[in-house]
């Protein structure tokens, strides 16, 4: 739909205003407030966060709420995609060459994903990167003609997609039950809890991304094509 001409000048005006606001925020952020920066405070406490990698410790300990919300956003996005109807028509079954390549690539992607998940504790890596690799494995399977992209049936897929958020919230509630704050890990348990959350998140991100690529509610396997 085309916007009416009388309002057409409003769009550049609005964009300029938003641009000016963003620039102002950037300027304040760079030049303003010379006091103690959060980064130094956070870096000091990385050793007790349960993850040696500063990025992981920020994502899963200091700002765990952020990561929880990101997982919830992914889940909501998948629900939105599913609400649009059934999945797209599957791709044709790939020719021999691509098919055998996929047979090599998919296990490699799964291993690389597991490696990135583990290494995320002390070096660059982590749940989102690992999940993206698992999702890529699903995309490769879908492109070579597997209609379900290696994903389980719908009821299990639902559990898998919600797993990251579920584990995160359960850990938070458990910590509340122990008398600590929501997602305030005790240092002794931090590493185990972070690893559990990251594992759940990786599986869930991988499943969500692969399911998003299918682009709709999964078709029942074996059902007749409409």
């Amino acid at each position: 739909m085309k916007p009416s001409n009388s309002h057409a000048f409003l769009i550049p005006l609005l964009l300029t205003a938003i641009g000016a606001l963003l620039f102002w925020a950037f300027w304040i952020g760079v030049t303003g407030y010379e006091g103690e920066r959060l980064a130094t405070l956070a870096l000091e406490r990385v050793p007790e966060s349960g993850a040696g990698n500063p990025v992981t410790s920020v994502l899963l300990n200091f700002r765990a709420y952020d990561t929880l919300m990101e997982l919830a956003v992914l889940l909501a996005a998948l629900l939105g995609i599913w609400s649009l109807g059934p999945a797209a028509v599957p791709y044709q079954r790939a020719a021999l060459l691509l098919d055998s390549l996929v047979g090599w690539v998919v296990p490699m992607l799964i291993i690389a994903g597991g490696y990135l998940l583990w290494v995320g504790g002390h070096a660059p890596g982590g749940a989102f990167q690992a999940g993206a690799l698992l999702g890529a494995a699903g995309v490769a399977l879908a492109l070579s003609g597997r209609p379900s992209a290696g994903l389980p049936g719908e009821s299990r897929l639902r559990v898998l997609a919600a797993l990251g958020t579920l584990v995160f919230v359960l850990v938070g509630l458990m910590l509340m039950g122990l008398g600590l704050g929501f997602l305030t890990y005790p240092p002794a348990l931090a590493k185990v809890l972070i690893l559990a959350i990251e594992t759940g998140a990786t599986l869930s991100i991988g499943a969500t991304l692969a399911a998003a690529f299918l682009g709709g509610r999964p078709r029942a396997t074996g059902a007749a094509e409409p």
Partner: protein
Amino acid sequence: MNPLLLGFDILLSTTLLGLALAALTSREPRRGVILFIAFGLLLALVWARLRAPDLALAEAAIGAGLAGALMLSAARRAVRRR
């Protein structure tokens, strides 16, 4: 600073801006998406140059790889519907 690296950085950022413009102004969805994927891969290089390997990994895997694949399948559907 190493002049070679400086030259590389300037080349990288100008290419990035050019790709962004080309992707945004492309009339055909498929072409735009492919330009966007190239943009994402170069952006991953920029993150690596800024010594943020986490972001470089995430950008290459999620930004260029998966977002690109998602948009390509969306473009495929848009063409089919037309």
